[in-house]
């Protein structure tokens, strides 16, 4: 262990001359641009830079404009910043210039996040359909789970048990949704921690994704709510003077549940990404501050980055678990029998 630490420090000392020469270039480093570029969405998937050349996966842009109809083209064409009437606005989104005025078209481009979403869903489909295939081909009474089933079964049964403990007797109807949500969040959280392609997209730290997940839970809760559930919202048994206030509070509470689900997952994952990226960026910020500070701070940021990465692995699981268990609790509350 001591030898390893010494090796790291010595290798950092070796970096000092290089750092001193590149220090001047690092001064105008746009740290917030780097961080928000990483956690935001983009029309291309930037992988790395080799020298001056940027290596990126160019993704298809799909637009529907009221004035000119459908447009499908590669984002490579937007490299100069303009393609036909399409330019980037100040937020980095493509807008169409209609008579000199920027108009935002209906934009369903396959962006970095959408590609990551597709990738993770294909991964999920492959893994769980293979597991299902294993169970179709084998008799569980004859042999223990083998192959991929032995890997996924404990997790699936964990979620299934969450459903059983929190929802009433008809939990089997809701267990597939909870499983899907759990594994979707878990896979995307972990893919977000992997720093290179095809991971690294901040999908579960994107509010659109968490909002859709929370809305799925919201609709499941309210579509399958029993009449007792609705009675408790609109005509609860409370003293007379509370009668007019309670429905307002209850409706507000029902609406706040998906909001809290959305924000909790989104904020946790985004914050984790920002913290790790900040730790990495510390190295570039301190590069200009002389060899001693650079060396020591690099060591500190490496150790902290390692710690945060491990913490994020924990958070990735905890957030998927929390989202699932809260969804199960909300569904359970809506399935009250009396």
């Amino acid at each position, binding site marked *: 262990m001591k030898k390893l630490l010494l090796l790291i420090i010595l290798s950092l000392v070796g970096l000092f001359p290089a750092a001193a020469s590149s220090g001047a270039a690092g001064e105008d480093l746009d740290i917030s641009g780097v961080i*928000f570029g990483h*956690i*935001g*969405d983009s029309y291309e998937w930037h992988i790395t830079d080799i020298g001056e050349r940027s290596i990126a996966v160019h993704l298809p842009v799909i637009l529907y404009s009221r004035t000119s109809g459908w447009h499908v083209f590669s984002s490579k064409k937007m490299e100069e910043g303009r393609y036909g009437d399409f330019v980037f606005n100040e*937020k980095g989104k493509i807008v169409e210039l209609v008579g000199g005025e920027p108009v935002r078209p*209906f*934009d*369903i*481009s*396959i*962006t970095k*996040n*959408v590609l990551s*979403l*597709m990738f993770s*869903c294909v991964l*999920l*489909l492959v893994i*769980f*359909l293979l*597991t*299902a295939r294993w*169970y*179709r081909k084998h008799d*569980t*009474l004859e042999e223990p789970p083998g192959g991929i*089933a032995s890997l*996924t*079964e404990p997790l*699936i*049964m964990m979620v*299934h048990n969450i459903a059983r403990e929190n929802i009433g007797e008809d939990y*089997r109807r809701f*267990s*597939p*949704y909870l*499983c*899907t949500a759990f594994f*979707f969040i878990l896979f995307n959280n972990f893919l977000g921690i992997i720093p290179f392609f095809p991971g690294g997209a901040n999908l579960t730290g*994107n*509010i*659109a*994704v968490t*909002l*859709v*997940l929370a809305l*799925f839970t919201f609709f499941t809760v309210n579509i399958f709510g029993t009449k007792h559930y609705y009675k408790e919202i609109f005509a609860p048994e409370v003293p007379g003077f509370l009668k007019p206030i309670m429905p307002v509070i209850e409706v507000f509470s029902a609406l706040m549940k998906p909001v809290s689900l959305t924000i909790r997952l*989104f904020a946790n994952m*985004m914050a984790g990404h920002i913290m790790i990226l900040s730790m990495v960026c510390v190295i570039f910020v301190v590069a200009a501050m002389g060899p001693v500070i650079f060396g020591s701070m690099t060591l500190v940021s490496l150790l902290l980055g390692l710690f945060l990465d491990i913490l994020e692995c924990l958070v990735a699981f905890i957030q998927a678990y929390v989202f699932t268990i809260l969804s199960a609790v909300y569904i359970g509350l809506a399935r009250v029998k009396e």
Partner: protein
Amino acid sequence: MDLITPDSGLLFWMVVIFGLLFFILAKFGFPIITKAVEKRDEAIAKSLRDAREVEVKMSEMVKEHERMIEETRKEQALIMKEATEARTTMISKAKEEAREEADKILSEARERIAEEKESAMRDIRREVALLSVSVAEKILRKELSDEEGESAFLSKMVDEAMKIDNNIS
């Protein structure tokens, strides 16, 4: 502000793709897996219950077995006792019979001996009669050769013969 505004394109794709994912996995994925595992869990619970029942039954059977062994042992003792009794009675009976048989044989033998003895006595008597006749003849012949004695003897003989005749009649 950009971060907390949901992007319409991503919203659209998320609804479509997540909806599809949910549809496929809810139809072909998770229910198959959970059903299979629940079936196995039930089977395990059932076999555990069965095993407990079998264990109870087994202990009952062991008790029953011991009881049967005990009973058999008692029965064996009883049979042994009976057999001993039967043997003794049989032996005594056989002895009794043997004695009776022996007695019968003995009495028969005695009778036979008596008969034999009788016939032997008869034979002897006849022999003796013949012998005495021949002895008498010899004596007679000797007596008769002597003149003097002849008449005395004759008279004596006649007397005696007369006497025998009287006795017979």
